[in-house]
C-alpha cells in the first residue's frame, strides 16, 4: 500500500484549485451555454461569433502571441545564458532584469502609456532631437503597427523576466560536465549551445512556453491601458461584456480563452515531449 502522506500534503492545494479554479470554470461553461433564465442554448456562441469586435479580437490576440512569444524567448534565452556566464557584473544584470517581475501589468501599461502617448516621453525626445516635427500617433486607433509596437514593447518588458528566471533554473540543472565534455571534443561555443544546452533545456522551455502562452492569450491590462478600444483582444472583450452585464457573452469569451489555452498546452505537451531516458543518469 502506498503511503497516504503525499496525498494529504497535496490535499489543501487540490481543494483550493478545485474550489477556486475548476468549479468556477465549470460554472463558466454552464453560463456560456445557457440563457439568462437557465435554459440550455447555443445562442450565446452564435452571438459571440457575430459580436462587433470578435474577428478583430481573435486576430489581435493571435498577432500579439506570434510576435511576443518568439521574441521574448529569444531575448530571455540570451539573457539567461549571459547571466549564467562568468562575465563581470552578471549579478547586477540579474538584479536589474528581475525588476519587472515586481511590477503589476496595469502599472506597466500606464508607464509605457506615458512613453508612447502623443505628448509622451518618446515623442518629446524625438521632437527635441529634431527627428520629427509633429508627434507620431503611436497609439492612434487606426495605426495598427504603432499599437502593436507599443503593446509588444510593454508586454515583453513586463514578462520577460519571468521567462528568464524559468530558463535560468533550467540551465542551472544542466550538469557542467556535459558542456565540458563537448568542449574537450572540440565543439565551439555556438555548437555547445545548440547541440548541448538547448536540447537539455527542452523540458524547461516546454514549461516556460506553456506558462507564457496561457498568459499571452489572457493579455489584458497592458492592452487596455495603452490602446483602449483601439486594439480589442479576447480578454478586453470579455471584460466589456461582463461590465455590460451580459454574463452569457462574457462567459462565452472566457470559455473560448480557456479552450485556446488548453489546446496550446496540449500541443506543447505533445510536440515538445522529452523521452524519459534523456534524464536517466
Amino acid at each position, binding site marked *: 500500500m502506498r503511503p497516504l502522506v503525499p496525498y494529504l500534503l497535496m490535499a489543501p492545494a487540490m481543494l483550493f484549485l478545485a474550489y477556486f479554479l475548476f468549479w468556477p470554470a465549470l460554472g463558466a461553461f454552464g453560463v456560456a451555454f445557457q440563457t439568462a433564465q437557465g435554459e440550455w442554448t447555443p445562442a450565446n456562441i452564435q452571438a459571440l461569433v457575430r459580436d462587433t469586435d470578435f474577428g478583430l479580437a481573435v486576430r489581435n490576440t493571435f498577432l500579439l502571441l506570434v510576435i511576443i512569444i518568439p521574441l521574448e524567448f529569444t531575448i530571455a534565452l540570451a539573457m539567461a545564458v549571459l547571466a549564467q556566464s562568468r562575465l563581470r557584473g552578471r549579478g547586477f544584470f540579474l538584479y536589474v532584469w528581475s525588476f519587472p517581475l515586481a511590477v503589476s501589468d496595469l502599472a506597466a501599461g500606464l508607464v509605457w502609456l506615458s512613453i508612447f502617448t502623443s505628448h509622451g516621453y518618446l515623442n518629446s525626445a524625438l521632437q527635441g532631437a529634431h527627428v520629427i516635427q509633429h508627434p507620431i500617433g503611436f497609439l492612434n*486607433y487606426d495605426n495598427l503597427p504603432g499599437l502593436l509596437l507599443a503593446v509588444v514593447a510593454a508586454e515583453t518588458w513586463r514578462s520577460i523576466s519571468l521567462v528568464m528566471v524559468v530558463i535560468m533554473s533550467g540551465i542551472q540543472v544542466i550538469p557542467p560536465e556535459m558542456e565540458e565534455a563537448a568542449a574537450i571534443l572540440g565543439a565551439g561555443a555556438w555548437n555547445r549551445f545548440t547541440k548541448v544546452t538547448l536540447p537539455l533545456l527542452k523540458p524547461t522551455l516546454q514549461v516556460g512556453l506553456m506558462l507564457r502562452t496561457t498568459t499571452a492569450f489572457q493579455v489584458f491590462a497592458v492592452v487596455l491601458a495603452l490602446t483602449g478600444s483601439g486594439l480589442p483582444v479576447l480578454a478586453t472583450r470579455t471584460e*466589456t461584456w461582463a461590465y455590460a452585464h451580459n454574463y452569457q457573452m462574457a462567459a462565452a469569451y472566457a470559455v473560448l480563452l480557456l479552450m485556446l489555452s488548453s489546446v496550446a498546452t496540449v500541443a506543447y505537451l505533445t510536440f515538445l515531449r522529452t523521452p524519459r531516458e534523456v534524464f536517466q543518469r
Partner: protein
Amino acid sequence: MRTRVWPAVAVAILIGAACGGTPAPASSPQSGQAKNVGSVAFVSSQGTPANEGQKMNSQVLAGFNGQADFISGPTAAQDVDKVTAEQKAGKGTIDVLALQHGDFTTLGASDALMDVTPLLQRLQKDRQFPQALIDYGKLGTSKQYYIPWLQATYMMAVNKKALQYLPKGDDVNNLTYDQVIAWGQAIQKATGERMFGLPAAPGTQASLIHRFLQGYAYPSYTGGEVTGFKSPQAVQMWEMLKRLWAVTNPQSTTYSQLQDPLLSGDVLFGWDHQARLQNALQQQPDQFQTVPAPKGPKGLGFMSVVVGLAIPKTAPNVAGAEALIDYLTQSKNQIAAGSAIGFFPVVQGVKLTGSQVPPYLNAEAGVAAKYASDKNAVVALLPVGLGSTSDQFTLAYQDTFTRIVLRNEDIQTVLNDEAGKLQTLLNTAKAACWPPDPPSTGTCQIK
C-alpha cells in the same frame, strides 16, 4: 402627465442649481441625532474614482453621528442586481442606496424600496427640495421611493490656447457642431494636430461617449434619444460625427476621463461629464474654461443627471439610514458632497459658497445656467426603466460609434442592425419612452 413635465422639470432644477435660486430657509443644525446611530452601509454608483470616494469619507461623512461606509460600485446595474438578490433572500446589507434617477425605476417596480414619505415630511420642516425633483422620486406612483441628493450635467472644457484659432464671429459660449468642427480644422491647420477630445475608451464604466450620443448628439439632431435612432436625421448626425472625428485626437479611444488629456496637452478642447473635467479646471484654473455643449439643427441637446437616496426594504439599519439621509441633505453637507464628487446641490437655497467650494464648480454651474435658460434646449434624461439591461443598452450605442466612426461601416446598415438590438433590450425591460422622446403607450418603439 408625469412623462411630459420632465423636460420642464429638469430645466427648473438646473436654474435652481445654477442661480442658487429660491430664498434659503434658516438652516437648522442637527435634527436631533445626538446618539450614535451605528454602522450604515452607503452604496453609491457615483463617486467611483478612488479620490472621490476618499473625499466622501474624509470631508463629508466624517461628521456623521455613526459609522457610514461609502461603497461605490462601477455600475448601477450591479447595485440594482444586488438589492434585487437581497430582496429575494429576505436579508440585506445595504442601508442607503445612491443611484441616478433612471436606475431606480426597476427597484421601484419590484417594490424593493421603502416608502420614505414620512422621512421626507420630517426633512421638509427645515429644508426644501424642488417640487419637480420630489415628483421624480415618486417614479410615477404615490409613494416616495427616493429623496433627491445631487445633480450634474456635461459640458465642454476649453484650453485658452485654443481660443486664438476660433473662427472670427463665432461665440465660444454658443457654438454649433459645425462650428466646433471648423474650429478643430483651424487648430489642425495651425498646429498640425487633431486637438478635439472625446472620452471614447471602451467599456460601459470607463468613458461616457454613450452619454454624448444619447444626451447631446442625438437630441440636437433628431430631437430624441431613442425613437429616431435610425432616422434620416440620425444619418445626418453620424455624418457630422465622422467630420468631428476627423479633427478629434485619434487617441481619444484611450481616454476614459477628459481631464487627463486636457492636462497633458494632448487635446485643447473637448466634451465630458462635469466631474470628469474637474482636475484640469482645479489644477490650472487660469488655463481652462467651461462652455456649453454645441447645438444642432433641433436645438441644444443636453443631459441632466439627478442622483437620489433610497432605503432598500431589506436595510438592516433603517434608523441609521434615515439619519444619514437627513445628514446628507443638510446645507453644509450638500455643499461638501457636491465639492467632493463635483456635483451640484439640490436643496433649495444652498449656495455654492465657502472655502471648501472649488471655483470650478461655480464655473460649471454657470454653464448649467446657460443650458437652463436656452430657448432651444432639448433636455435629455438618462435612460429610464432599463434595469439590468441598461449596460447593454449603453454598449449598443458604443458599438454603433465604433462601427460607424472607427470602422467606417455603412451608416444606415449599422443603424438598422443596432436598432434591432436596442429594440430587443427595450422589449425585455418593457421600458416606455423617456424624454426627450415623446411619451409612448407601452414599450418604446424605434421608428
